[in-house]
């Protein structure tokens, strides 16, 4: 059963000097517990899709359903993580984490216990009274992850959350996020520039093309790679073939060909 469906979603950006069509007829469906990635060149509207699903803005056209309910009417929580942590520098780690419950007026002793447990899950126990400025980039991003998880979101949206980190931290965090998503059986959408990251973390990959943004092709990540930790996926014998296959399409896409193929592939 489809958990999240986008049905012919289009989006325009308007300004006084004109308009751009950021998304055109995006249709996709994601199952519960699935981890999908969206990759594509800059300006293809990857982040726009996430912003729309996060209900930060409304699509110009089309319908989105979460658990068979129109997204706009749904009161289900959606987690959204940005490229940088955007922890509030004047709040302690604990206060940052409790932002979601605070906004919804649901802070209880239970939430604090839950927060401490999640902190322990990301190996950040004992930091609850620290301020974000005392933590490194990777630690801050882990706190941001906890801040997102504590609202118990139905679906997690990652907008290049690892791109501002150094390579070692990034690999460690990839493993951690993949493990957490599996433990809590969360549905997740990852937007990234990094093809290796997309393959190592997800079950399915949407390749987008630009101007207007639409889904050019969908790739299934081989079964054997899906349950491996991201770090080991990169060394798996099946990793390189799928990497090369997507890489080829990425480059074809830049020359703006193969549009005939896309329509059949979309319904995979």
């Amino acid at each position, binding site marked *: 059963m489809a958990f999240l469906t986008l049905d012919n979603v289009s989006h325009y950006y308007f300004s006084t000097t004109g308009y751009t069509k950021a998304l055109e007829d995006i249709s996709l469906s994601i199952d519960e517990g699935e981890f999908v990635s969206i990759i594509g060149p800059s300006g293809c509207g990857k982040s726009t899709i996430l*912003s729309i699903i*996060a*209900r930060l803005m409304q699509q110009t056209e089309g319908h989105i359903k979460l658990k068979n309910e129109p997204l706009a009417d749904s009161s289900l929580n959606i987690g*959204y993580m940005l490229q940088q942590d955007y922890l*509030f520098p*004047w709040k302690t780690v604990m206060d940052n984490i409790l*932002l979601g419950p605070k906004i*919804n007026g649901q802070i209880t002793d239970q939430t604090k216990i839950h927060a401490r447990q999640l902190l322990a899950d990301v190996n950040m126990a004992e930091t609850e009274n620290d301020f974000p400025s005392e933590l490194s980039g990777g630690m801050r991003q882990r706190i941001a992850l906890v801040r997102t998880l504590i*609202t118990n979101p139905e679906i997690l949206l990652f907008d290049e959350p690892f791109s501002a980190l150094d390579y070692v931290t990034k690999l460690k965090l990839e493993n951690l996020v993949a493990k957490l998503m599996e433990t809590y059986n969360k549905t997740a959408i990852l937007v990234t520039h990094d093809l290796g990251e997309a393959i190592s973390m997800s079950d399915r990959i949407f390749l987008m093309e630009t101007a207007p943004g639409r889904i050019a092709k969908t790739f299934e990540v081989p079964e054997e790679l899906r349950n491996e930790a991201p770090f080991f996926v990169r060394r798996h014998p099946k990793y390189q073939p799928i990497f090369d296959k997507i890489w080829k399409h990425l480059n074809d896409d830049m020359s703006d060909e193969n549009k005939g193929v896309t329509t059949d592939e979309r319904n995979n």
Partner: protein
Amino acid sequence: MKETIDRIFYDNYLKKIRSETRVVTIWQLIIFILFIAIWEIASRFRFIDPLLFSSPTKVSQLIYEKIIDGSMLNHLQYTLFETILGFILGTVLGIIIATILWTSQKFARISDPYLVVLNAMPKVALGPIIIVALGPGFLSIIIMGAIISVIITTLIVYSAFNEVDPNYQKVLKSLGATRSQCFKEAIFPAAIPTMISTLKVNVGLSWVGVIVGEFLVSNQGLGYLIIYGFQVFDFSLVMSSLVIIAIFAALMYKGVEKLEDWLIKHTT
């Protein structure tokens, strides 16, 4: 052994810093003493007209007399009270108006040209109108002290509200925050350092407003003493009032500086 050597280097460093501070203080004292001495000598030997420019001995004598008979304290109290009230009123009103502007974009756009005109306007020129409207009393003077800083505070704080990184709001909105919650959790706290820095500017502005106000109406206060001394050609009185104003304006500025340190420590 090694530690004692480290210690010596550090002590030398401290010594150097201390001796630099001493040199600065000594020069500050020399300039002050020279200024007083030259003023006194020039007045005694009639290089300047002692009737117009008075002399340090005459000024200090007058101040002493006025303190003894209690009249200086009376005038000082009056002016200080008006300045502090005008300062607080101007700052608080400015922040409140900025908040209203932020709440309604449309209202902000509509009021923009009026704010520009009011800001460009020399506020002390409104003095006569304020006095006619509110009566020649201390209410008018407080309003003068406030009106001089309120518009500039509004503009600075409003632009600080708008410069807060929009991603903080994105985070909050994705957690389900309303616009007023965004203001409370992100916009207002992020603008606190700007508000604190307007305090320092405003304290100087309020002195200007109050002294001009007292020029115009009052029969009490340091501004009144200046005008009175001018009218009866008692320039020792004018100079005495100036010295008192200089001392208390500086004290108030230092006080605000201390308040600023405290606020920064306790809010960020």
